[in-house]
């Protein structure tokens, strides 16, 4: 596959690894994005770079940072009699206080897994007497696609198409993370495709205000290793925001996609698991689109549940590694997840469980 295989070349990867080793310095680096976490685990990079480079996983998994209350809202809507939920696969098994979407489906709720929000439009067309609610989960990579779909629904007069938006924005979360009292990191590996949309300028504050070196990179092993090399160099050269993924990221981002997003969404405060409420970090449908907003519906939510002992919040901020959560791989597994980090295929705990040998993680 073009523009993919070249960046997985073993010869290139070996050369990049060697160059990293030759730099006689070490670092503690956070990869923010869930897709990066999975790629790093799947390509075996985390273990091969240790102990020189310690890669800590961050909160960039949109499914994982969806709060318990939000998940409960999803389940409540799913249970409404004339509703069909259309969702990305990642959301199916996330546990709320009273079960997951998969459980709701087993109990009779109609839940359809889709690859694209456009498929949800098709479902709305075919099932005219049902209310089709698309679950908007994802960061800036996904929000424009969902926004475009909503505009299309409005255009085509599809009154039975609704959106339940849990979309979140990455830069505000990075600010909140950097403000955490004991947050110590030598650099950020920043998400490639979020940056395709928002551009590299959006992260300037990380280097300027917080002095944290940043590299925006793609998802192939060569991209990731090059980013790590550049971050190590910045320990000497000083912090800045560099773009390794120049084939897909411009300083200003994708202006058309951004404007589609702006036409549909307002920025609102949002609750992030592990990071609490962050101002201007969530997306909510604008007033003029309220007829398509399932977020405004009255639903009965279950009361707060007893603490299950889940430490996803700390894992998401890089405070602890998955193996340091007492539930990891024992009470909490992909089959029986307690928290979303183990459920989402890109959750930190799931990635470590699926790909990495347990004792490699117990430092």
């Amino acid at each position, binding site marked *: 596959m073009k523009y993919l295989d070249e*960046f997985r070349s073993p010869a290139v990867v070996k050369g990049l690894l060697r160059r990293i080793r030759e730099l006689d310095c070490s670092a503690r680096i956070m990869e923010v994005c869930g897709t990066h976490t999975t790629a790093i685990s799947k390509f075996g990079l985390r273990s091969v770079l240790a102990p020189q480079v310690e890669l800590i996983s961050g909160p960039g998994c949109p499914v994982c940072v969806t709060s318990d209350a939000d998940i409960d809202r999803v389940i409540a809507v799913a249970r409404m009699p004339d509703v069909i939920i259309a969702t990305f696969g990642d959301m199916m098994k996330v546990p709320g206080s009273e079960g997951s979407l998969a459980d709701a489906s087993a109990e009779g709720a109609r839940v359809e897994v889709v690859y*694209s929000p456009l498929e949800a439009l098709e479902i709305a067309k075919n099932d005219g007497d049902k209310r089709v609610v698309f679950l908007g989960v994802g960061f800036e990579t996904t929000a424009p*696609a969902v926004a475009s779909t909503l505009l299309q629904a409005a255009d085509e007069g599809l009154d039975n198409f609704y959106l339940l938006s849990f979309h979140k924005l990455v830069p505000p979360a990075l600010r909140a993370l950097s403000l955490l009292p004991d947050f110590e990191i030598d650099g950020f590996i920043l998400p490639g495709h979020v940056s395709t949309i928002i551009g590299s300028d959006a992260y300037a504050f990380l280097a300027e205000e917080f002095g944290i070196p940043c590299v925006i990179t793609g998802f192939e092993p060569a991209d990731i290793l090059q980013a790590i090399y550049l971050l190590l160099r910045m320990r000497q050269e000083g912090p800045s925001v560099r773009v390794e993924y120049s084939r897909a990221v411009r300083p200003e981002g*994708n202006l058309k996609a951004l404007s589609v997003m702006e036409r549909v969404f307002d920025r609102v405060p949002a609750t992030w698991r592990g990071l609490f409420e962050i101002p201007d970090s969530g997306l909510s449908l604008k007033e003029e689109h309220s007829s398509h907003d399932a977020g405004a519906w009255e639903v009965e939510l279950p009361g707060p549940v007893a603490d299950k002992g889940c430490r996803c919040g700390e894992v998401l901020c890089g405070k602890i590694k998955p193996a340091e959560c007492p539930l990891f791989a024992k009470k909490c597994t992909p089959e029986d997840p307690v928290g979303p980090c183990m459920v989402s295929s*890109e959750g930190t705990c799931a990635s470590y469980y699926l790909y990495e040998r347990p004792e490699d993680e117990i430092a």
Partner: protein
Amino acid sequence: MCLAVPAEVVEILESDIALVEAGGARKRISLSLVDGAKVGDYVLVHAGFAIEIVDEEEARKTMELFEELARLNEVP
């Protein structure tokens, strides 16, 4: 959060829909988030949408840099 795959635009169909191909697999996707995609361009495909046109010049530069490194690595 960011699964997007580079695919070649094979045919532009009706308004804002294109047929793209990667590795011999073809799929219809929306072009509503990009401007000026032409047949032969490579686009990044995410959730059924093109989210950017791949800058092939930049891709080439990056690949050259990496290939150079791979060559250097062969020197023991």
